[in-house]
Structures are given as C-alpha cells and as structure tokens.
C-alpha cells in the first residue's frame, strides 16, 4: 500500500455555485488515557479533505477507529468527548465554521446541518414527547412557528411511511419500535430543512429486515427534499444503496474516494478491495452423522413461568465437529435457545441429550463434566472477561478448575492455547483493556477451548467486530473445529456469516424454528415467506439492489 501522503484520484470538484461543504486538510486529535501510562494525544484524523455538492450524498466508510464519525461531526464543528479539531478548515456555505465562535456554531447546528445518530433509542430524550423533540430545532432557530413545524413534521412522518403520522408525535420514545424511532429521528433532522444531514450509522443497530425499510425511507426522503448528506457506515453494501460517491478511510487517513460504482466495482486500492470482497469463505458443508452430540427435543420455555412462551416446541440436532447456525432477528428466541441449552433458563418442557446422556434441565443439577464439555463465547468479549485478570489467568482458570492443572504445566498449556488462537505467549501478562476487539474475542475462544469442550455455543461472536476482523475470527473458528473436532452452535443475525460457517441452519421466528436442515437445503428455494424476507433483506453490493429487494418482497417485516 502507498505511504502516508500518497496521491489519490479524487472526483472532480463541484462547481462553485453547487459547493456546499469543503473540508480542507482536517486534523483532529484526542487525549487518550491508556491504563498505567501517562495521558497522551493521538491523531484521529490526519489531513483529510473532501468536497460535497448540494443535494449529493457522500458515504464515509471504514472500520472502527477510521475516523469516519469524527469527520462527520466536524461538519457541525463538534468533537465528541475529548476530541479536538486542531487543524484545517471546514467551509460550509462559504464560511469556515471552525472560526465562527460558540454562538455562530450554535446557530448552524440544527439549522444548516442536522444529525441522525446510530441509536435513536438513546438519542431521544425519554422524558419528552416525540413531536416536542422533532420540532425543537426548527422553532429554536426561528425557521418555523410551532404550528408550521408540526405541520412539516407530520408531512415528514408520512413521507417516511410511519404509521399514524398525525398522532405518532404524541408518543414517547419508548412507545415506538426501534425502526420507527430511527425514521422519526430522520424526520427530526429534516424538519429544520437543513442543507446537510450527517447520518451516523443510522441502520447499524437494526435487524436486516427492518434496516431495508429504514434505508428505503431515508433514501426517498433525501431524494425528495434535495438535502445533501454525509452517510457514515462500516457496511459497504448499505452505503452503495444511498451514496453518489464513497470515501474509504483507514486510521484517520483517506484511502480512496470515488463514484459509488467505481469503488464497489473497480476498487483501485488494495484495502478497498479487501473491504469489497470480505465476506467470502468457502465452507464445504458436512453431512449429518448418525449420532448427534447434542439433541434438543421439543423445548418450550418462558421467562418467570409467564404465559408468553419465548421458545415453542424447538427441536434441533448438532453433530460432532459440525456447526449449526441459528439465525433470526432480535426477539426471535435464538439467544434464549442458548440459555435453555446451557441450563441458565431451564425449559418448561422438552429434553436435551448431550454426548449420549440426558442433561438435567436446571443448571445446578448438572455435573462438572456437563459444564466443562459445553462452553460458551459471547458477543461482548470485553465484558465477558474480568478486567483485573491477565490473559494468562483468564485462560488458565478453566485448566485449574476442571483439570487441576497448576504451575509450569498450566503455563505450558496456556502458551499452547495462545498459539492456537494465533496470538503467541507475549500476551500472557496483558490485561483485556490492552487488547483490540478481535484479540479479546480470541482470548475468549482460548478460554472456552481450555476446557476441552465437545460443543461451544457462539452467541453473536462476530457481530461487534469490523468485517475484516470478524473474517479472521471465523477462519480461526473453522480451523479450530478441524483440529479439535468441536461442534458449534452459532447464533447470529448475519446471513453472510451463516453461509461461511454453517453445516446446518435453523431459522427462528417468534420463538419457533420455521426452517431447519442442511445449509444447502435451507438456502435453496422454494422458501417460506419469512426465510425469503430474511434472505432478500441482506444488502448486496449492487447498485439498485434496494429498490429491487423492496419490490420483490412477499411479507412485511415485523419491525414496522
């Protein structure tokens, strides 16, 4: 790859009368507080320049830490946390907003530039009605009277196809669903009739089936109002649907910037190419064997013995050394199935057979070998580890607990395990806080492996990771499976991940398994309505995919 100051082909500059945003040589720094060291300043964004014409959409893409959100917020002269803009110019509507002072900045925020956050659920004030929050900025900046602003908001609610557009504003944030809230937030941004909206991962926290509707609503609203947008995301397939141009960032520097078609079809930089082609692991499916390692039969479960069953009559088999992927949207019961199998939520009915013996439903009645042979890895690796223990202690603990291995032998085993997860024994004395997200997840994998399990339950283990890092974790898991002959129950909402790792698939919807079988059969038409919706909602890196997918749907998604 080219050096720090490499030449990048940039799209032609917009005509002066069309130019809305002109960021020149932006430099942003932040003070970091590494554990046990003195605070120091790090550069988050280094010499990035961009231009945006009126009514156009520029996608900013990159892994976490690429500086994309930071650049987006600089268009509002805002630095989150301890972040400071230390150099460059941000010229909006012909003036440098970094030099307008506090009052000048306040006048432009919520008027000329508006913001749509990743989690609308957190970004709305729980104490106020939606309407009061949607019209707040428009009234504050005097762009409308209250009556006009409410009229405008209702019009926008309708445009964003929210249900009951005339009354939804009377509701409180907790009274509407996540997908709806994200659209209300878009309406809130549009209500001030700004020149620019910064969308900061607006669909990342949503289920795929909900994401597609929100994405379509945002796209229509951008087109109809003629607002310009910076669209920040880590998902290239998503950004390809809404952007005119895409800018790829890495470590706070520009990698590549071009038209959407060029970036996804003819990437010029190696890194962009890696991003475009990340999801493809060829995984040959194994056929079921005679004896499953784990067999769940007619599992029915409810929380607190309540009348609402979160699992209804679920039956699945997992075969030795193979992977069963459980897919579904949030609330479908896939994590609950894991809790039932581990005994954390004892099922009301049904039985679980594991390695030839029947597991007792309740956790406290299970033997130590039952516990040892069934391990679990979680989505949030950093909260699944004790932050005050070193990597060596974390991985060594199951060795002591299950096998009584101590001293040199234990250290020896820990070193072997670290080798297996491709990290090396230099990490023995590190604390979790000193590791990257992918390394933390690797340590959790090593901890699970240390128990010599027959089955590992992986609950969304790659969901919090960047695509390239997640890719590495999946390859590691597949390699370990081959070496150790361990079976996986792989819970995920990401169908691309499923395709790369599964031997068989169970599709869950509202507590039931709606489709189950070997991967090849589950992913071959004809589909049931829900599986069809799920599959057709996965964004594809194809311009025009969104419109095609919406048109071809047979079933409305549940999040609406």
């Amino acid at each position, binding site marked *: 790859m080219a050096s720090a100051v490499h030449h990048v082909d940039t799209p032609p500059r917009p005509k002066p009368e069309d130019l809305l945003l002109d960021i020149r040589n932006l430099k942003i720094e932040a003070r970091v507080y590494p554990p046990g060291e003195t605070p120091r300043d790090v550069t988050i964004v280094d010499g990035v320049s961009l231009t945006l014409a009126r009514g156009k959409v520029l996608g900013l893409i990159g892994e976490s830490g690429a500086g994309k959100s930071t650049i987006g917020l600089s268009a*509002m002269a*805002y630095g*989150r946390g301890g972040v400071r803009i230390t150099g460059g110019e941000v010229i909006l509507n012909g003036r440098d907003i970094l030099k307008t002072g506090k009052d000048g*900045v*306040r*006048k*432009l*925020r*919520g*008027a000329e530039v*508006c*913001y749509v*956050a990743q*989690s609308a659920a*957190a*970004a*709305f*004030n*729980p*104490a*106020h009605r939606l309407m009061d*929050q949607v019209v*707040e*900025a428009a009234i*504050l*900046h005097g762009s409308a009277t209250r009556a006009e602003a409410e009229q405008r908001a209702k019009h926008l609610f309708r445009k964003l196809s929210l249900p009951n557009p005339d009354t939804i504003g009377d*509701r*409180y944030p*907790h*009274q509407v669903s996540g997908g709806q809230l994200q659209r209300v937030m878009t309406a809130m941004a549009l209500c001030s009739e700004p020149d620019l909206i910064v969308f900061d991962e607006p669909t990342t926290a949503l289920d795929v089936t909900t994401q597609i509707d929100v994405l379509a609503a945002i796209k229509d609203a951008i087109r109809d109002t003629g607002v310009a947008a910076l669209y920040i995301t880590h998902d290239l397939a998503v950004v390809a649907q809404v952007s005119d141009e895409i800018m790829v960032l890495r470590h706070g520097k520009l990698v590549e910037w071009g038209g959407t078609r060029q970036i996804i079809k003819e990437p010029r930089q190696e890194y962009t190419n890696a991003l475009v082609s990340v999801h493809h692991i060829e995984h040959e499916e194994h056929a079921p064997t005679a004896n499953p390692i784990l067999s769940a039969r007619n599992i029915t479960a409810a929380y607190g013995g309540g009348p609402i069953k979160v699992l209804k009559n679920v039956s699945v088999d997992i075969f030795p050394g193979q992977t069963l992927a459980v897919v579904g949207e949030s609330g479908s019961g896939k994590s609950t199935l894991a809790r039932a199998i581990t005994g954390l939520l004892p099922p009301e009915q049904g039985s679980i057979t594991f390695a030839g013996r029947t597991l007792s439903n309740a956790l406290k009645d299970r033997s130590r070998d039952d516990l040892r042979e069934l391990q679990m890895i979680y989505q949030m690796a950093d909260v699944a580890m004790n932050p005050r223990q070193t990597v060596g202690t974390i991985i060594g603990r199951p060795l002591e607990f299950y096998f009584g291995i101590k001293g040199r032998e234990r250290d020896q085993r820990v070193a072997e395990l670290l080798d297996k997860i491709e990290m090396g024994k230099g990490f023995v004395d590190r604390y979790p806080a000193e590791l990257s997200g992918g390394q933390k997840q690797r340590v959790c994998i090593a901890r699970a492996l240390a128990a010599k399990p027959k089955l590992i339950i992986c609950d969304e283990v790659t969901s919090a990771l960047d695509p390239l890092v997640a890719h590495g974790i999946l390859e590691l898991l597949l390699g370990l499976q081959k070496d150790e002959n361990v079976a996986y129950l792989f819970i995920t909402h990401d169908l691309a991940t499923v395709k790369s790792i599964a031997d068989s698939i169970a599709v869950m919807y509202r507590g039931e398994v709606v489709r189950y079988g070997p991967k090849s059969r589950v992913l071959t038409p004809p589909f049931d309505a829900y599986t069809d919706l799920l599959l057709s909602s996965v964004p594809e890196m194809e311009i025009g995919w969104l419109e095609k997918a919406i048109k071809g749907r047979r079933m409305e998604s549940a999040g609406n």
Partner: protein
Amino acid sequence: MRLIAQRVAMGILLLFAVSALIFAGTQILPGDVAASILGQSATPQSLANLREELGLNDPAYIRYFRWLGGILTGDLGTALTTRQDIATTLGPRLWNTLFLAFWTAVVAIPLAILLGLLAVRYRNGPIDKTISGFALASTSLPEFFIGYLLIFFFAVKMQWFPSISTVYDGMPFLEKLRAIVLPGTALLLVVLAHMMRMTRAAILNVMQSAYVETAELKGLSQLAIIRKHAFPNAIAPIVNVVMLNLAFLVVGVVVVEVIFVYPGMGQYLVDHVAKRDVPVVQAVGLIFAAVYISLNIVADIASILANPRLRHPR
C-alpha cells in the same frame, strides 16, 4: 396507580413494624419507671402500688396493644414525670418544629437545586469549584459548631438576631421568622451541601447521555440543555435526596433546637430521655418515624411519576 397504592401500603406496614420496634426497644432499656419517679426513698409497697397504677405489671404484648390502640385514637398517653397529656404538650412543639423545618426548606431546596445547576453549567470552572468547596466545608462542620459560630457572630457581635430562639403563641409572624433565622441557617448549611452535590451528580450523570448530545447538535444553549433535557431526567434522584434532607430537618433538629433553646420536639425529647420518661420517648420516636416514612413514600411516588415509562405504558 397500583404501584403507588403498593408503596403507601408498604409504608403503613413499615410504620407498624417500627412501632413494635420502638416499644420493644424501650422495654429493653434498663431501669424502672416507678423507681425513677419515686426516687431512692421509696418503700417497696409504694413502688408496687405505682407499678399497679401504671399498668407496668401486665405482660408486654398487652401493654403494646393498649399503647397502639391509644395512638390510633389520638391518645399518645400521659407523661410519667409531669403527669401531662402527651398529645396536648407535643402539639404546639411539633408545630414549632415543622415551622422551622418548613421555612428552612423553602430557602434550602430552591437554593440547592439552583447551585447544583450552576455547578453543572460551569463544571470544573472556578464557579463550580467555589460552590463545591463551600459545600464540602459546610458539611464537614458539625451543626453544633455552626450553631455556636452563628450565635457568636450574629447574636453576640453584631446583635442582629436573638441568640435564644423563643417563640410563643400569638407572637407576630415576622417576629417568629426573625427568631428562627439563626437555627434555620444552621440547618440550611447542613442540608444545602448534600442536596446541591447530589443535584450536581445526578445532572452530570444525565449529561453523558446520547440525548444530551442530540440537544447540543440542535444548537441549544448549555443552560437550555440542562433545564430542558437533563433536569427532567434527573428528577427522581434529586427528589430522593431532597426528601431525605426534609426528613432530617424534622428528625435531626435535636441538637440545633437544644443549642438555640427552641421549643420544638427535639428539645422536648432530650428533656424526657434524661428523665427516662418512656411514653414521651415512644411517642416522639413514633412521630419521627412517621415523618421519615411518609417523606420516603412521597419520594418514591415522585420517582414513579417522573418516569415516562411508568406514566405512559406502551
């Protein structure tokens, strides 16, 4: 609604439990009421007679229910030492204590919340540091020390206010207010710091929220953000600490009342503890408990009402 009813029912139940505890506690105390009334010269015969008359020979549970039944009908019993009806003696004193507490609260609560808001607005700046430093100093000083300082400067040196806060029936209202300025100030300094610091902490906690960032990105001013977006979400913890301090104003005044010779409940309690007058101690204890529990119920109800999720279910 059901939640609120639950809280109230719990409070009443708690009050009964406290009454049993108070009764049991006074039974465990060493010493004999009859002996302390009659003194050392008492003959065994006169002691026995007095015990019979006071009903001290009945089993404890009968005495408890007799006492409880009296309270429920408004009869707090008779003071052993003075032979006066407790309810009639206590009435005006309770009124005086509430008078002092009320006017202290009227000044303290808005002032504490305002200072808390200012500290957040100018956080980590000189204004915040000054407010916090002053608050810390006033909490660290015990109230009797503050009381004597106030008397020394404002009563003895400047002679602005009386050093003894006498109030009596028929005293003109403004005179009364003048009389309680010094004890009120002493109490104010004790409760102000706690309330102010908790207000600051509660609002600062909310200021980390994503919706505060949303407000900032709408171009709202700092003060508008704190007032409109942070404060409504910090109400529950603030109300809690305010109620705790209100309870202190009623229950914790004992020392301050004694210093300023203020004719309130605290002084009355201290007098009768010294004389081992069990019915008075029980009655005052129960009133303090009732104040404490009911203010806590108010705090609970306020938190329920402040939570939009409970007010507006899905």
